[in-house]
């Protein structure tokens, strides 16, 4: 990738004092990621972050599936801001790309139509007796990791470098559509040349592969996945991306959106089952990671504590390349030692122990 | 006496081979004829048609009357060769029978002068006649040589480019008669049995040569003559000379009403192999004389088709204007053969093809007279408007089949070789006509007219072109045309004129409206406008070139208006015309006399 990425789209990211807004689905798809985020911010970087048990779903999936009204979701968002106000914080750190898109959209709506904001304030007050202020800084948690990428590198135990050859590992990145496609100025690097994940990969010693369908949607598309009959379209989009990236032989896929990570991972299994195609080395899949998982690996966290065993495509080839020491026998054990069972063998992870 | 000498072997073998091949070919073709054709033959054999056929064989195969009409020199050349040779055989057979008696083998007749046993003293009338005939044939051969070298002198701009087997046969044919002259002269030198020609040459030989030398050369000459005959006979069934014999059964079969159709059948072979490749079809072809395309004319088309080398670029590159067909001395159905050669290669429509026409009826109005404008007429609204005025003036109730867009008639598809597909469209149109109960179907498009008449089998519905219809209205007093001082010239559309035989109706109408000046080529000789749907190959500029050549000829008449009776011709001529181009219906509609 060329060095001269657009400088136009830069973004201010708060350095400390975050109010954490978790993602509904990430906690299921990648259960170790959000835990790792809090750990990195709080323990590694010594920053203040408030993980509020009182906040709720942003209802974004319901909104994009036409079952939650605009008015409703704006009120829900207002309540989250009210909780942030209670915590005395001003910097919203949003874990989910859908939520991030929702928050930016709501704030933009209020900016353009102050009377709507007034109405929402009224709604919230009538419903809960709450008031709120708007965040001073709104960032996606990948923005925050990007912001601290050099600090993480300073603490790195492993780098994105092939231990055997010394070559940088090749990463392809995939940015969630709602990160910057709705409001390009809200994303680092904008929509055409996103740099938020690329910056992490480069900072941590890897190299970013620019492949033709880099900007293409993963295919989640809410209703395209949620309605079973439409899933062929969803998987078709993932396949288009996988086919486009495969010739570059990437060592891993890095995502910042819960849906994208999920689908680029799980659809690899489905495609292999339906038509026998796999896209990684040796007939296996391409490992898919969240940025927290990647940061966690760089910082030397245990892969199973990061939840990497929950991925459909096995991550061991990547761990081996990075030279990460791990206990293969512990992969399917809970921290208390209880066996959680292992999935049936599938084409995308055949032969990995 | 067995009248045998070794030199007769080539002749005997060649003759036997030739007749075997011809019998086998004809037999196979006849055997493969459809049942209906076979029945027609059986019905025809014992009718007057057989006598008519015999007369035609004499007129055409021997005397070449048609070629005489087209070109007397060419006619004489063909007649001297065909009829002369026939008489040589016939008179020679009589002479041999008289001298040698009956029951002698064939070769004894053919080589009679060699086997002649009579003692000759004084003037021999047979020898005189035979020499006269030989001289006549030789004059034909000389003309043929001359034609090869200088065709223009015989009124042909171009002659046919022949294939190898034709050249072999031709060479043999050219050698036969000079060799016969030489052989018979040598025989006459020995036996003194020649006439004024061979006898004279014989005396000269006898006077100048040693008798032993004469004996040797005599033998050699007869061997060569026999070889020449044999070569010709062996090559003949595979060369253009197959036409000599094939034309005969063709004449009979045609008299028995056998015709080629849009689909190939074995009768086509009689037509194809009856082509003598005389090349008369080359000169009139507009593709040749305007566009300089030299390999697609009927003679080449038939040749390529006969030898199984027909390229679709040749088959598809024909205007099917019918000009060559009208000139063909053998009367071969050239358009039909062209058409069915296209059908063979491409016509397998899907079973659901054109199902979309089902139930579509955009017709309007009511009446016993149906009017089918045709696709092209929809692009010439003046014709449509004129017909409206004419119908109105005549007080005719009309059912408008396609004024608001209708189906195609199917002929363009047929012309493109998709006969089966065309029939699917025709069936839908027939349903429509039947549904609306019309008794007369008028069309403005000669292309539609032809297909309605020839392929639709519209029982109870009379199909006429608007020229015929308008004239009828005039004759019935329902319409009258005001005379003007204008001058008109008329372009005969191919499909209307040569295609449907309608020449006089439009002329009669024009004369009512003004003065008619005929262009150089008219009626059966009329030129094609170039936009014919039958040609799938030539491009736009080529079409326009042909069109402007025709337009120039029409403009040369000095007439103020070029009249035609086909929307396609109208558009083609108007492209390049500096005078007005109008349809016949326009001329009538504009000059309707108000009923008093």
């Amino acid at each position: 990738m060329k060095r001269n990425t657009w400088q136009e789209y830069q973004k201010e990211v708060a350095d400390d004092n975050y109010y954490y807004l978790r993602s509904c689905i990430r906690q299921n798809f990648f259960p170790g990621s959000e835990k790792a985020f809090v750990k990195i911010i709080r323990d590694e970087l010594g920053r203040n972050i408030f993980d509020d048990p009182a906040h709720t779903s942003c209802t974004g999936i319901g909104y994009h599936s036409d079952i939650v009204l605009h008015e409703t979701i704006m009120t829900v968002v207002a309540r989250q801001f009210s909780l942030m106000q209670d915590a005395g914080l001003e910097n919203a750190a949003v874990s989910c790309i859908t939520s991030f898109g929702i928050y930016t959209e709501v704030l933009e709506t209020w900016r353009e139509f102050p009377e709507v904001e007034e109405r929402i304030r009224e709604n919230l007050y009538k419903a809960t007796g709450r008031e709120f202020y708007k965040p001073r800084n709104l960032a996606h948690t990948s923005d925050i990791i990007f912001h601290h990428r050099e600090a993480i590198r300073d603490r790195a135990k492993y780098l994105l470098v092939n231990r055997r050859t010394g070559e940088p590992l090749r990463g392809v990145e995939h940015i969630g559509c709602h990160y910057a496609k709705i409001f390009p100025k809200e994303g680092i690097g904008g929509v055409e040349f996103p740099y938020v994940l690329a910056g992490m990969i480069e900072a941590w010693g890897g190299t970013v592969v620019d492949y033709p369908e880099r900007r293409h949607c993963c295919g989640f598309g809410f209703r395209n996945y949620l309605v079973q009959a439409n899933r062929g379209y969803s998987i078709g989009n993932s396949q288009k991306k996988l086919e486009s990236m495969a010739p570059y032989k990437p060592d891993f896929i890095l995502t910042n959106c819960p849906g994208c990570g999920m689908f680029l991972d799980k659809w690899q299994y489905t495609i292999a089952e339906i038509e026998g195609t796999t896209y990684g080395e040796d007939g296996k899949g391409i490992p898919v990671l969240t940025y927290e998982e990647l940061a966690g690996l760089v910082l030397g966290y245990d892969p199973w504590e990061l939840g990497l065993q929950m991925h459909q495509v096995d991550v061991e080839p990547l761990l081996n390349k990075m030279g990460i020491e791990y206990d293969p026998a512990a992969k399917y054990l809970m921290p208390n030692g209880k066996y959680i069972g292992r999935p049936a063998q599938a084409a995308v992870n055949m032969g990995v122990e | 006496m067995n009248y045998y000498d070794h030199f007769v072997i080539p002749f005997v073998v060649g003759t036997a081979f030739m007749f075997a091949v011809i019998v086998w070919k004809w037999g196979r073709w006849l055997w493969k004829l459809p049942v209906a054709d076979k029945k027609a033959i059986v019905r025809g054999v014992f009718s007057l048609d057989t006598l008519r056929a015999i007369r035609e064989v004499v007129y055409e195969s021997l005397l070449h009357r048609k070629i005489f009409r087209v070109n007397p020199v060419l006619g004489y050349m063909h007649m001297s060769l065909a009829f002369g040779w026939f008489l040589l055989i016939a008179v020679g057979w009589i002479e041999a029978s008289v001298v040698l008696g009956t029951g002698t083998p064939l070769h004894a007749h053919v080589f009679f002068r060699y086997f002649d046993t009579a003692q000759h003293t004084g003037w021999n009338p047979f020898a005189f006649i035979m020499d006269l005939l030989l001289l006549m044939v030789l004059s034909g051969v000389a003309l043929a040589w001359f034609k090869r070298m200088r065709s223009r002198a015989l009124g042909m701009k171009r002659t046919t480019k022949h294939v190898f087997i034709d050249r072999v046969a031709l060479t043999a044919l050219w050698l036969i008669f000079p060799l016969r002259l030489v052989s018979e002269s040598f025989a006459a030198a020995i036996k003194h049995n020649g006439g004024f020609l061979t006898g004279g040459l014989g005396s000269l030989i006898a006077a100048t040569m040693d008798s032993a030398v004469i004996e040797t050369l005599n033998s050699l000459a007869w061997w060569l003559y026999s070889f020449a005959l044999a070569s010709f006979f062996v090559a003949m069934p595979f060369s253009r000379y197959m036409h000599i014999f094939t034309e005969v059964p063709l004449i009979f079969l045609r008299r028995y009403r056998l015709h080629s159709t849009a689909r190939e059948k074995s009768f086509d072979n009689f037509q194809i192999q009856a082509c003598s490749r005389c090349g008369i079809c080359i000169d009139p072809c507009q593709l040749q004389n305007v566009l300089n395309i030299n390999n697609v004319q009927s003679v080449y088309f038939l040749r390529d088709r006969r030898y199984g080398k027909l390229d679709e670029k040749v088959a598809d590159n024909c205007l099917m204007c019918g000009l060559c067909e009208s000139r063909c001395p053998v009367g071969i159905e050239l358009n039909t053969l062209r058409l069915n050669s296209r059908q063979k290669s491409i016509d397998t429509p899907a079973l659901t093809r054109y199902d979309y026409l089902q139930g579509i009826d955009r017709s309007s109005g009511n009446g016993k007279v149906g009017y089918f404008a045709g696709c092209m007429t929809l692009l010439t609204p003046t014709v449509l408007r004129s017909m409206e005025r004419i119908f109105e003036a005549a007080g005719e109730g009309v059912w408008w089949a396609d004024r608001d867009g209708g189906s195609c008639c199917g002929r363009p598809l047929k012309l493109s070789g998709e006969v089966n597909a065309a029939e699917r469209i025709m069936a839908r149109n027939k349903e429509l006509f039947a549904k609306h109960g019309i008794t007369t179907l008028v069309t403005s498009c000669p292309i539609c007219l032809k297909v309605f008449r020839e392929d639709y089998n519209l029982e109870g519905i009379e199909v006429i072109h608007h020229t015929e219809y308008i004239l009828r209205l005039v004759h019935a007093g329902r319409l009258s045309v005001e005379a003007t001082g204008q001058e008109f010239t008329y372009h005969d559309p191919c499909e209307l004129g040569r295609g449907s035989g309608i020449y006089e109706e439009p002329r009669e109408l024009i004369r009512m409206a003004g003065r008619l000046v005929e262009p150089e080529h008219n009626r059966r000789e009329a030129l094609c406008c170039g936009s014919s749907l039958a040609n799938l190959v030539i491009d736009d500029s080529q079409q326009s070139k042909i069109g402007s050549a025709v337009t120039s000829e029409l403009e040369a008449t000095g007439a103020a208006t070029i009249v035609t009776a086909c929307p396609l011709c109208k558009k083609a001529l108007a492209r390049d015309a500096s005078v007005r181009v109008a349809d016949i219906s326009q001329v009538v509609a504009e000059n309707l006399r108000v009923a008093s």
Partner: protein
Amino acid sequence: MPQFGFSISQPRAVNLDTNDFVPAEKLLRELPELQSCIACGSCTATCTAGNLTSFNFRKVHTLVRRGEYREAYEQMDKCMLCGKCRLVCPRGINTRAVVMKIKRELGDYQR
């Protein structure tokens, strides 16, 4: 194979990297004027068949030129070869020959 209840949708995009241009190029070699089409739509507007059913000659021959033959194969059968389109084409394209060639090259007919 597990039953997923759906299959992988194929992209609708015309892929000029993978399409086979051999038949299209042959067509254009024989009828080069087709390249001068300016997509005015006259052919389609005047089309006898197109006024009776959904048939768009302009679109079909454009598809063929892009190497998309399957749709063309199905579509060209609707044409009646009446030749009106040829009369209205401002670029003088021998449209009937285009129809015939597309059908022949695309295997509509058994040769």
